[in-house]
């Protein structure tokens, strides 16, 4: 049986403006000011950011302390997420979510947190405001990521996982691509597209690898399960675009989660044959706006990105009919995912413009074409490139994507709740509630560990090696109005 597909999205946002030209300063201000304006944030210790960290000792406290005393650029939030500075970008890592719908909700909560952070940080220097963008490149060859994480069974061989999933990773961009003008890499420069489907695809140069910044691989081999390494692998997917369309995010997470469950339950044999050259394929598919261009596959057939997605959808439909889709989500949600995925595919084939309320590259291209026609602009006009960037501006009054209005799955009140409340069905619940109730007593918190300072040199260490535990059902008794930290420690027996 496929294991529960716990998942989450981590997004690095583009950032401009601020009191200093250094984006690290602006990113730090966003995180620090958000934390300062929220009474319920505590520091995150990255020194223990791996599953093999043993226990607790004085040196770890020492390495933790300076983070508190300098700038609060690493924080864990009451919703169980992590909000921090990664290199020169503000990054939001969603809490662990049990289903794709929930993954979407907590990704949206991240956008809202970034908006609140902008507001908070810009109180300090209103004359040079910081602006945050949810995109993946600056149009000048610099790319930053939107990474997905999925829990997979450790017993599944990694090469099988890669060979089965590669068709999805090269082709899903026709649904999840956010589009951009032109190209930024040598490889894509040879194809010289006026417009591309994906912001990210052209930056991939390998099939697998450990890197995320150089020679980027379609499937990343980083192996940090943040949990029991004998049972779990955290599949780290770095090839996606950062979506603002809710349907795109739902299908991105939903399709990938279902296909991973299929590899676990049915093996690789049921998957379509991979392209003979996956790197060429991901580049070509990003440049092929007709969606009809085909690449050679290992079985001798030729397939377009649409062909791959169609075959994968049929496989997922068959799997759900036979096995249910319990590893991914409850039945209603699995149906919602399959229908959304199918409907987009049908629209893309029959009449792509119809998908413009769900597929970002279609919407952006329509907007650019209409604007270009209206003012008879040349292809390289700066106003077109400005629209390309401003599509991703997170400020409600400036965001072209928001003004266009993609189909909504969650409305703002749901999103706001997810800003402060953790998901119910993963260990993120326990983490978020510890932050909510005992932030001043937490000495250290991590994906798979919470350490409480009990005073007098005593500490209580609570490991969370299984992301499916620590749920509301299992731990809400520890956080009632009458409970206290000593009671929690006693009941957990730590």
């Amino acid at each position: 049986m496929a294991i529960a597909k716990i998942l989450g999205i981590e997004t690095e946002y583009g950032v401009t403006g601020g009191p200093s030209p250094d984006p690290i300063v602006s990113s730090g201000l966003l995180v620090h000011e958000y934390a300062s304006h929220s009474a319920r944030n505590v520091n995150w210790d990255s020194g223990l950011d791996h599953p093999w960290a043993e226990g607790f000792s004085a040196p770890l406290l020492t390495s933790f302390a300076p983070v508190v005393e300098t700038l609060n650029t690493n924080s864990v939030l009451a919703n169980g997420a992590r909000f921090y500075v990664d290199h020169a970008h503000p990054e939001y890592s969603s809490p662990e979510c049990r289903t794709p719908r929930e993954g979407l909700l907590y990704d949206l909560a991240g956008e809202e947190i970034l908006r609140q952070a902008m507001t908070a940080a810009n109180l300090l220097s209103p004359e040079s405001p910081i602006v945050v963008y949810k995109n993946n490149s600056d149009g000048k060859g610099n790319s930053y990521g939107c990474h997905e994480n999925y829990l997979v069974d450790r017993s599944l061989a990694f090469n099988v996982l890669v060979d089965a999933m590669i068709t999805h990773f090269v082709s899903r961009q026709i649904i999840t691509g956010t589009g951009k003008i032109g190209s930024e890499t040598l490889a894509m420069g040879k194809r010289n597209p006026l417009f591309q489907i994906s912001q990210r695809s052209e930056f991939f140069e390998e099939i697998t690898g450990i890197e995320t910044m150089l020679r980027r691989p379609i499937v990343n081999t980083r192996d940090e399960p943040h949990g029991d390494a004998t049972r779990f692998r955290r599949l780290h997917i770095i090839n996606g675009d950062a979506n603002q369309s809710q349907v795109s995010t739902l299908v991105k997470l939903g399709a990938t989660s279902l296909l991973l469950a299929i590899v676990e339950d049915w093996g690789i044999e049921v998957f379509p044959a991979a392209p003979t050259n996956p790197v060429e394929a991901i580049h070509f598919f990003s440049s092929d706006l007709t969606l009809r261009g085909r690449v050679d596959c290992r079985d001798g057939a030729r397939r377009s990105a649409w062909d791959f997605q169609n075959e994968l959808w049929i496989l997922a439909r068959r799997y759900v009919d036979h096995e249910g889709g319990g590893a991914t989500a409850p039945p209603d949600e699995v149906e919602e995912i399959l229908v959304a995925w199918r409907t987009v595919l049908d629209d893309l084939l029959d009449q792509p413009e119809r998908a413009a309320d769900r597929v970002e590259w279609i919407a952006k291209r329509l907007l650019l074409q209409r604007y270009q026609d209206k003012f008879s602009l040349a292809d390289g006009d700066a106003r077109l490139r400005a629209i390309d960037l401003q599509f991703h501006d997170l400020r409600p009054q400036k965001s072209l994507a928001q003004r266009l209005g993609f189909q909504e799955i969650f409305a703002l009140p749901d999103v706001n709740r997810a800003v402060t409340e953790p998901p119910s069905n993963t260990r993120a619940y326990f983490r978020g509630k510890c932050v909510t109730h005992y932030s001043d007593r937490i000495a250290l918190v991590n994906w798979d560990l919470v350490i409480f300072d009990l005073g007098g040199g005593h500490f209580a260490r609570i490991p969370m090696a299984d992301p499916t535990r620590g749920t509301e059902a299992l731990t809400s008794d520890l956080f009632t109005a009458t409970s206290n930290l000593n009671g929690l420690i006693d009941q957990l027996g730590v």
Partner: protein
Amino acid sequence: MTMSDQEHQRKSQTEGHRNDELSADVTLDSDKANKLKADLDELLSEIDGVLEENAEEFVKSYVQKGGE
């Protein structure tokens, strides 16, 4: 099962799904398309008031460090 049987089954599964569950949405879809067209028209008419003032400078100065 031969290859062509599989193909046939896939085709009918796909089309069966389209007929069963999606045909009811056709009216809704064309409404949505009209709404989107209206949204696009509206955005086009107001976009110059929203766009960053100096497009050239804005695009030139949007430089990010690589991430991840």
